């Protein structure tokens, strides 16, 4: 009984409950048909939101005003860079992934440079950076769809017993991220800065370095996400990252991370990503039109955030 109680006290548990309810509602509607396939599909798609969601989570945890709005443009450019470097050639996969990672990290570092050197608020800096990145992407990729090497596309879609391999790898990655958040100096520093940046400075935290690392990390995760998306959807294009602007922020908030900063959790990002994907699947299954689907998605996100925001601050 006490273990159930302590489980219910975790801020991330609600996103999983939400995902479960949506899934149950859908298979009740279909009469149990496609229940397993739905989970597999949800896992495959949730992976991409989780990867950028974790980056966004660290950024948002830095405190009010911190957000990375350049992720969609970043994903778009990195997917093009990865595909061009791989050039349809299986032997270049690792090099391509590294290129995407470096491209994303460079974008993240540039974001922080704008914030730090020009003292622009992060929301403006990352938004204006995304326009520049998008322009580079358009002139670099010429708007063409670039195909991944067959080996990479197969890898991105590879499943073992119905479980996507990418999802397994992402679970391992998120475990690492959770440990970094709670048990490493880096994570503690991010949490301290998010609660009170001045107190963090006076307690000896290297505020500038930690913020730089965080924006670079978010950028790098966006970059790798772009490469994986291009592999999964068998082609890179400029718009491939568009839906991850709202999604990356929504999974952070629905997952129980505080928008005010200083309080974060990684499991919630998974729960929220599954919830969002399953929600779309459910609405598709119910056969509602695209307009209604977007409307309901928006309303449900607002509802969840309102409910999650209802918990009282410790004061």
């Amino acid at each position, binding site marked *: 009984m006490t273990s159930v109680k302590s489980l219910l006290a975790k801020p991330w548990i609600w996103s999983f409950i939400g995902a479960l309810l949506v899934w149950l509602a859908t298979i009740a509607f279909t009469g149990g048909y496609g229940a397993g396939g739905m989970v597999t599909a949800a896992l495959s798609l949730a992976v991409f939101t989780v990867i950028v969601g974790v980056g966004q989570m660290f950024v948002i945890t830095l405190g009010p005003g911190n957000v990375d709005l350049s992720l969609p443009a970043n994903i778009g450019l990195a997917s093009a860079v990865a595909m061009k470097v791989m050039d349809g050639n299986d032997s270049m996969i690792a090099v391509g992934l590294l290129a995407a990672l470096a491209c994303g990290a460079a974008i993240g570092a540039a974001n922080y440079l704008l914030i730090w050197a020009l003292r622009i608020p992060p929301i403006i800096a990352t938004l204006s950076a995304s326009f520049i990145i998008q322009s580079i992407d358009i002139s670099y990729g010429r708007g063409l769809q670039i195909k991944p090497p067959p080996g990479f596309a197969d890898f991105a879609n590879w499943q073992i017993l119905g479980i996507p391999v990418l999802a397994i790898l992402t679970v391992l990655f998120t475990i690492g991220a959770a440990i970094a958040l709670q048990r490493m100096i880096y994570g503690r520093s991010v949490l301290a800065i998010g609660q009170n940046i001045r107190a*963090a400075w*006076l307690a000896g935290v290297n505020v500038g370095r930690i913020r730089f690392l965080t924006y670079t990390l978010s950028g790098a995760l966006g970059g790798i996400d772009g490469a994986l998306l291009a592999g999964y959807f068998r082609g890179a294009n400029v718009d491939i990252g568009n839906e991850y602007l709202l999604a990356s922020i929504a999974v952070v908030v629905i997952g129980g991370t505080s928008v005010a900063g*200083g309080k974060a959790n990684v499991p919630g990002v998974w729960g929220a990503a599954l919830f969002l994907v399953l929600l779309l699947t459910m609405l598709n299954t119910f056969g509602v039109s695209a307009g209604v689907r977007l409307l309901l998605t928006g309303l449900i996100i607002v509802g969840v955030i309102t409910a999650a925001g209802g918990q009282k601050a410790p004061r």
Partner: protein
Amino acid sequence: MPEGNADIIRLNGAEKHFGAVRALGGVDFHVGPGECVGLVGHNGAGKSTLMHMVAGTLVPDSGKIGVHGDTEDNYSVSRAQQLGIRCVFQELSLCPNLSVAENTRINHASLRGLSWRRKAADLIAAKLDEIFPGHSISASDIVGDLSIGRRQMVEVARAFTVTQDRLDLVILDEPTSSLDAHTAGQLLAFVRRFVAGGKSCILISHVLGEVLRNADRIVVMRDGKVVVADAADAFDRDRLVTAMGGAEARQKIAAQIAAAKPTASPLRVRARPAAQKDSTDLVACAGEIIGLAGLAGHGQTDLLLAIFTAASRARAGIEVTAPVALVAGDRQSDGIFPQWSIAENIGIRSLARLRSGVLISPQREAELAALWQKKIGIRTPDMNNNIFSLSGGNQQKALFARALGSDAQIVLMDDPMRGVDIGTKLEVYDLVREEAARGRTFLWYTTETEELDNCDHIYVFKNGRIVANLRRDELTEEKIIQSSFGDAA
């Protein structure tokens, strides 16, 4: 008292507590018509609290307020305004984004109609001309663009403008702190004219000469009480200083510290304030407790922060030879991490030492917390409780534990005992002396003069500079007050 000569304001037995802190302990205070009352006392003596009550911004916990001979039961700012009582507070209250004329309109609801802006401009311009002839401030200037001195001139002039409400009493809280000698003289001359016209003023100033020359009557406050109230010509500078400081014998704890001090210990900090004109340095060696004294906000915190910054990045004029930690006085904005437990709040300064491998060890973190809970006496059943489960004094102890539990050999203390109860203070004093005996260096900014008894050496600050440099055997409260209230700018 005859009806025609009723006091403008009279407070009887006014008391005020902020939490456990007694700000005012039963004060009787009055201002009659046609007099200028000087109010002097240390930081924290209760002057501002008393003036907030006169102005209606604070309500006393107990005691009576009477205005113009009638008892006021629901006294408030707007009531004070109606009754002709205005206040110029130390923290300037003008809106920086509005013009001088627009700021004037805020206090005068009767300036209406399409031309209200011109009416307000005429009103404030006339008053500025009257008080500060040749002032060169335009009513259309945006307040944020004015220098701090000009802002103070506008603030003062605005308080003396009259439209429909009466004006009997103006409280001037440090009105000359940002004015140069010339404009300050203009203002004080105007105050004398104002008082000669049958109106009244309360003048608060740390420049004792100003008060002695311009007040008719002087009220001295200490520790939330009025200690002396007498005609101004009954005072001279020395009597005033003695009354403020409390000349009664104070126990000197630290004779034994001075005796036990090693003569040549290694240098830890050498620092010169940015505003220092001569070559005076603050020097701190291993095992020393150095006091930073003087009035609040005269550059002590700035120097501590400069030393803190210099520890990680080289800075001109400041030499720091060991790791530094800081104990914040303003807990909420500079110290506490509200989401965290007591243990996490203590551990943040020592994360690198709490690691095993790359991960922070929860066991070591708990050990550090438990060690300091015992050593400094943090009263809680569980160090994993949220930091806000502690009382203010115990939160402050956690901040001390954060600094003392770290590898820092230099501990900077930014007036850390603000609002802390006396029991906690005594415990922490003992601990500080004990840690100093082990070779740690403390730089201790404090606004409470008794705390300086714990120090080996005291630097007195004024206007961002070191103005006096006292060994502990030279330390008397009078000396500190003499230096920090010195009239020489």
